Every structure is written in structure tokens, then in C-alpha cells.
């Protein structure tokens, strides 16, 4: 699956969200299994089956974290508590660290 198709699929699942980090590049570099894993994880986040972390910097902000084993790719999905999804970050470890700091998680 290419990133354009994935973006549509994800927005169909979570509603309109921002795609942050290096979404296109990283998504295209994921294996098909990992791409499926990401979509499945997003579905579980939507269904309330995945644990989140709350920000101490931004009120009501929740973050879900996914690590892809044997790679340094990370996904961070943010959500306004009890409301809507905000953004999906996909990037390498070093950018993810900066993103975590920015979000206060």
C-alpha cells in the first residue's frame, strides 16, 4: 500500500487528522505486514483497546505509542480526551523523542 491510499484509509477510520513526522517516507518503507499492523493498531486505538499516556503540558491530550520491532520507526497517535483524534506522527526514534517532548508525554 502506498502512503496516499493509507492516508485515505486512516482518515476513513479516525476522521480528519494531521499526518506528522515523515509519514509518507516511513509508511512507504514499512513492510506490508507492518503497514497492516499500523492500521490494525489505529483501529484498536479507536475502539478504546489501547492504553494511552496523558500529557502534563497540554490539557486533555492523550497519546498512543507504537514501536515497530527491529526498526527505529515509531508511531504516536494523539487525541483530545473523550473527543476527536488530532494527529498521527510517524518517524524515526530521534524525531519521536522531540515529538514526545513537544507533547509533554
Amino acid at each position, binding site marked *: 500500500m502506498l502512503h496516499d491510499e493509507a492516508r485515505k484509509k486512516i482518515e476513513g477510520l479516525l476522521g480528519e487528522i494531521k499526518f506528522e513526522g515523515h509519514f509518507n517516507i516511513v509508511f512507504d518503507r514499512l513492510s506490508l505486514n507492518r503497514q497492516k499492523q499500523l492500521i490494525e493498531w489505529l483501529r484498536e486505538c479507536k475502539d*478504546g483497546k*489501547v*492504553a*494511552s499516556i*496523558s500529557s502534563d503540558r497540554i490539557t486533555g491530550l492523550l497519546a498512543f*505509542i507504537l514501536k515497530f*520491532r527491529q526498526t527505529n520507526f515509531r508511531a504516536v497517535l494523539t487525541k483530545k480526551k473523550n473527543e476527536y483524534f488530532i494527529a498521527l506522527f510517524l518517524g524515526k526514534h530521534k524525531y519521536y523523542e522531540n515529538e514526545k517532548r513537544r507533547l509533554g508525554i
Partner: protein
Amino acid sequence: MREFEKMISVERLKEAKRYLVPYILSENYYGILKKKLAERPLSANEKYYYSHFIRKKLLGMIELFGFDEMIDGKVFIRKDRLRKAAYLLRRYSRIHKGMKILVSGSFLYSNDYNDIDIFIISKYDKEDYRDGKVHINYLPIDVEKTLFFSSIRSISISNFDALFSNPKKIEINDLLHSYEVVVLLMLQKDDYLQELRYLILNLEYLSSSVILNSMQLKAGTDKIMSSKNPVKVISKYLSAKIIGAYSRKELQIALKRFICKNLKPESKASENWKVYNNAYKEALEIVA
């Protein structure tokens, strides 16, 4: 190699002549080396001898005595790995000319290792890459001031002498964030080694001003990861370490703020929030 040549003067070579000729260098080779060090032009023949024989002998001596590199924590480094690490350092120093390069990680001290970590300090934001078993990690220029760098430096071979500077203060918020991520990953059954290393390194420095080397850090993480209940162990460990590391007031404010943010979970998947707040409440009770 060029640096090594700078370390020898013609005078020093003359003094060492009786130990070198004829055991290591022939009279002819000795003359060529002397000429080279005196920066006199060499003939084509002499250049050939210099690059194909004399230089290689010097290279052998560099390897033998290991004085071309900065070695930290030599007692922990396996002899067979020291030689290979020195070779890799020279190889990558040639590829990345003029850059600060450091070989570190379990490759240096452990019988079993997954990859060979080479760190390159660069002012440019470059992508890490793999070259067979070698993993090239680019680090930002200000990394030398961090705990992470001090830790990897403590057992390493490098082409530069790093200046030790006191790491900046570890903020309680950053520490609690790290703890929350580690617990989340543990409960998700994700890989959490990297995050756990960072947390332990910070907690140990905070509580006892000790910067663990990569071997000690590995021992610490292995202990927690192999325990029956890593979540419980890391939570107790956090409570024990943060008490006394900050002022009572600072700790109380931060812990109460974190407890407050974790009070009302959104979904049923919130086991982690309970774990966090139990640990924070335990620490609060002790400092109260």
C-alpha cells in the same frame, strides 16, 4: 596514521635507532623514515618503500600499542575486540574525515553482540545507516554534554578526547514521562530496552551522581527485564530513587500534578494509569 607521524621527531628517531635497526627497520628503511620525518623529498623508489613497508610497520606498532586512539574503560574491553574496534575506527575516520568518531556498545565487552555501534558527532542532521554488522549512529554536536554520551564514552575507543562536563539538571517531569512510557511499553509487551536504559541512567545519576557505563547499564536492564514483574520492579525503583533527589516541595507539586492528570482515564484500557498513580502516591506518602 598522519597523527602518529606527527608524534615522532627526527631526534626521537635517532635516539631509538639502536632499538630499531636492524630488528624492526633495516638501515635503508631507517634512512627513508628519517628523511620523511624531516620533510625532505623522497625518490619514487623511497616513496614505494615508505608506503608499502615502512608505513605498514608503523601501522603494526600503532595496533600493537594502541596509542593512536583514545581508549576508555580498557579493562572491560576484550582484547580481540580492541584490535577490530581500532581498525573500524581508522576505517570510518577515513570515510568521515575530520569527524569525531567513537566505537562503543556490547561489541567491546560482551561475548555475544548484535551489532557494532559506531557514533559520529555531526553538526548536520544525518540519517543513521547500517554497513553490514556496523550501525552508524549520528549524534548532534551538543551530545557531549549529555548523560547518554558520558555513559557510552565510559567504555569506548574514539579518535578524540572528549571534555567532561556536568550533565544538565534532570527535570522531574522528564523523568516521570520516561517512566510512564517504559511502563506503557512493558504492558503493551513492546520492546522497551532503549527507554529503560535511559530511565535507569537518569535515576542512578540523580540519586547517587553515578554515570553507569554501558556494561553496568546492561546489567541493570537485564535484571529488571528478567524479573517476574518488571512493572512492579521499575515502579518501586522509581519511588525509591526520586525521594531525596528533589526538594520535598518540588516533588510534591510534580507528583500531585501527575496524579491529577492520570485520575480519569478515557477507556477501560487504563491499567497503566493505575500503576503510575500507585507509584506516585507511594512516593508522596514517604515524602509527606
